């Protein structure tokens, strides 16, 4: 239960971190909050040759409004800040609602938004929440041979980021540096809920929903995503589409919840059967979409 030996780089700034990741001769992993990586090291499920610690990079901790009124969250923003930061709570209440479901306060003191998304765990809350919000990830690396400038950046829709369980579109020399959430529009409501065996455990299933209603109460846009509903964090497009163009009446929500359960691909494991997980997805979807619709009306 002790980590294997590794070299350690405390990056003072982003360029230093990207420099370390760009060196292909040494297998290097970024160390963000460490709340998933360090257990993996302690269990020796991971044994990178080198860790580059991001905790000293101030520019990765920024929380600010973007020019279009959205939210920029540096990769090193901690889960606890999602619960406490006035700008986040006001602009994106879904983040503040979901954050307390992430493990325990001691883990949330350290765990980071960028780390959670980059880890691409289908059982984690934040990937599903950010998918529901239509977030984008900003990715940086040091320029490769033949490229101009010292640094290259790209922005990716989060939906294109998750490729498999614990597998994302990040290249070995790339670092997720920020998550950008588009501005919320008038008439929008969001909600999150999950079921776990014990408080702080990984959820058996969880659902995040966002809905926008026009002044007549008709749904113009809906998004639903699942925690532990498949092999990757996933948007449930088909189920969400059934809600658009009508008032979110109980029958419509029930039908969307049934579609969600049907099109999900939950795994069976020692904690719950596939059938029970589908049952939870259906129940939680109905609950969460109703709550989002009620909030959209007010």
């Amino acid at each position, binding site marked *: 239960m002790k*980590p294997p030996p590794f070299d350690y780089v405390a990056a003072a700034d982003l360029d230093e971190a990207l420099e370390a990741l760009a060196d292909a001769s040494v297998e290097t992993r970024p160390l963000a909050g460490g709340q998933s990586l360090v257990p993996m090291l302690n269990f020796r499920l991971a044994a990178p040759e080198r860790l580059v610690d991001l905790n000293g990079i101030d520019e990765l901790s920024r929380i600010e409004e973007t020019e279009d009124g959205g939210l920029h969250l540096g990769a090193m923003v901690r889960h606890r800040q999602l619960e406490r930061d006035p700008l986040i709570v006001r602009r994106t209440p879904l983040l503040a609602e979901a954050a307390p479901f992430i493990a325990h306060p001691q883990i949330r*003191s350290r765990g980071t938004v960028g780390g959670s998304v980059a880890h691409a765990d289908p059982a984690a809350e934040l990937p599903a929440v950010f998918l529901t919000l239509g977030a984008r990830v900003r990715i940086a690396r040091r320029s490769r041979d033949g490229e101009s400038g010292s640094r290259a950046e790209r922005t990716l829709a989060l939906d294109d980021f998750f490729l498999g369980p614990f597998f994302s579109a990040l290249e070995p020399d790339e670092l997720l540096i920020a998550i950008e959430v588009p501005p919320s529009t008038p008439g929008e409501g969001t909600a999150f809920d999950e079921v776990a065996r014990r408080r702080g455990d990984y959820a058996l299933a969880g659902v995040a929903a966002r809905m926008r209603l026009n002044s007549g109460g008709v749904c113009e846009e809906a998004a639903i995503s699942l925690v532990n509903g498949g092999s990757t964090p996933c948007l449930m497009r088909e189920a969400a589409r059934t809600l658009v163009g009508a008032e979110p009446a109980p029958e419509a929500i029930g039908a969307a919840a049934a579609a969600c359960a049907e099109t999900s691909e939950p795994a069976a494991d020692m904690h719950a059967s596939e059938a029970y997980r589908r049952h939870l997805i259906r129940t939680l979807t109905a609950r969460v979409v109703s709550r989002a619709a009620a909030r959209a009306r007010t």
Partner: protein
Amino acid sequence: MAWSGEVEPRLLLSDFLRSEVGLTGTHVGCEHGVCGACTVQLDGEPVRACLMFAVQIDGHEVTTVEGLAETPPGEAISVEGLHPIQQALHEAHGLQCGFCTPGILMTAEAFLRENPAPSREEIREAVSGHLCRCTGYHNIVEGVALAAERLAGDGAGADEGDEP
């Protein structure tokens, strides 16, 4: 106290505190962030010491359970010097073997500083990241509630938890 020296990068903060600094009040249980026994405060926030490396605390302040009681360094903790949360847990029978207690104290201290008048439900949520195999948790919750009452009523105590 200030500590300076060099450590191997892979040395966990929990092992560093116990074997390099000699502060054995921080207990090591599961070593993967589940049991809560190794909880300490990093710059005032509760964290798992088994999920951090000692090299990461360079320039930061770590508070362990030894920092709660008002005891001169090197001396045994006296009953008179107990922190109000320690005293309340003791009186409420919030511990038996005591293995999980230091972690719970460090969580409870930070929690009551942020939320000086918590409900029982909020206390349960706050200590939910700690496993205790003796008490059944009931008396831990009662102990933290008792501590909250005393800290709130004890204006002269000038405890940080009393800040308005």
